[in-house]
């Protein structure tokens, strides 16, 4: 399955990455607090805003998408998104949606920067980009969502995977 298949169409015909997680052993208020702390790191220039429902919030963010491979790989744009989260008794759900693509171009100093500042909903990328380009962008959007999904899970369960340092193998050079 391609990573882009992790994106689904919602009732408004827009792409979303939506998950419902059941059987959460952590108390609802604690889930909400930990998710809030996680969200604060998504965007340094913005703070989460409380939603209308209890224990719900949303925040906007963005990540870069790339084109090319190896040495030719460079930023081809940024994708902005809206992250919605809600905790309930024994479960939580979240959604990455409202994805918008902001194309980049190379500036006079050799840096990749937003071309015009205008963004295009990813549902309308077909108007300006080839199927190959769209597939690459959708794969990266999905991959970023999957990565953030894992980060959120770690934040909520507090089970950050710690690398166990490998035991150094010693050799006794006195012996043949």
């Amino acid at each position: 399955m391609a990573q882009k298949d992790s994106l689904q169409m919602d009732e408004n015909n827009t792409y979303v990455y939506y998950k419902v997680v059941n059987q959460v052993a952590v108390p609802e208020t604690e889930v909400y607090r930990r998710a809030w702390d996680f969200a604060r790191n998504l965007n340094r220039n913005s703070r989460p805003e409380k939603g209308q429902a209890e224990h719900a919030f949303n925040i906007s963010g963005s990540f870069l998408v790339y084109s090319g491979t190896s040495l030719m790989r460079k930023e081809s744009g940024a994708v902005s998104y809206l992250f919605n989260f809600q905790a309930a008794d024994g479960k939580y759900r979240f959604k990455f949606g409202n994805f918008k693509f902001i194309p980049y171009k190379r500036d006079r100093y050799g840096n990749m920067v937003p071309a015009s500042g205008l963004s295009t909903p990813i549902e309308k990328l077909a108007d300006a980009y080839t199927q190959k380009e769209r597939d690459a962008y959708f794969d990266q959007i999905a991959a970023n969502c999957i990565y953030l999904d894992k980060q959120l899970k770690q934040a909520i369960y507090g089970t950050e995977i710690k690398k166990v340092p490998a035991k150094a193998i010693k050799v006794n050079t006195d012996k043949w």
Partner: protein
Amino acid sequence: MKKRLLLLLSVFTFTLSAFAQDTTKSDPPLVISGSVDTYYKYDFSQHNNIPTSFASDQNSVSIGMIDLALKKKVGKAAFVGELSFGPRGQYQSIPNGDGNTTNANNSFHIQNLYVSYDVTDKFNLTGGYMATFVGYEVISPVGNFNYSTSYLFTNGPFQNAGFKATYAFSSKVSLMAGIFNDSWNLYKSVDKVNTFGAQLMVSPVTGWTAYLNVLTGKLSGTEFDLTTSYQITEAFKLGLNAADYKPAAVAGTGGFTGVALYPQVGVSKTVTLGLRGEYFKTKTGSFVPLGPPPGSSVFAATLTANVKAGPLTLIPEFRLDSNKNNTDGFTTKGGGLTKQASQFVVAAVYAF
């Protein structure tokens, strides 16, 4: 001035040493980007008339340049090295050597060569030889809509070597201030590092960005510049460049002033049409800009199409320049004086 320079240097050195121990989570790879461009031009007088930069060869399939930019960023520190080969990227835009007679034939090929450091997310320090921050058009054909260039571009700076600090108050406002070598477009100063430059960037609404620029020095003169572009809809963009230049007292009197408007409209997924209308006035005095002689003016209209096929852009364009006077420099096919000059250019630019 010496004290100011020492202060700037000490701040730069301190910040570098203070943050040099930062660890980096990952090293992005070395990034290579660039372009190649080639063109055909036909001036209807059958000889060169229009004196602006590039697209200079009459009735010839000619080369622009191959441009190769390397960029690497590790943590907060980055460098950019951009080399160019070909007429556009050598004698038409950069000096050969460093000014020493023995280096007269040593082409350095440098468009950009600088290092930068993000002191914070909002504060950046950059030093080296950089593309100028002044003006709407640039040397790289990838950065311009039209292939031929404006009088404002031709007469403005191309590069400035120096040291600059940029602070972003928000995504909508930033301020750059720097101290640059005493002369534009040279790898090293003639004598001093005493040109002051500043740029205020404001972005009042999404899609609209404006840059207010000033560059002033005792040898380089003073240029005030406004560069702005507004992507009003997905299909329509409007750009504007206005500038005024007064040479330093040692370089002469007079100067130039001008304004250029750049409306562009996307007519399909792959085709965009654009017009550049420029009014360029040379001030009375001893300073002689490229264009009509001092005390005269020119109006130039350029109709350009950009036809995109992936990384390749085909650029056909028609240009008509009208001088104020018959004696301002344009000549007819037979050599007679005329107010007008016109040319057709078709260029191909491949960006990577």
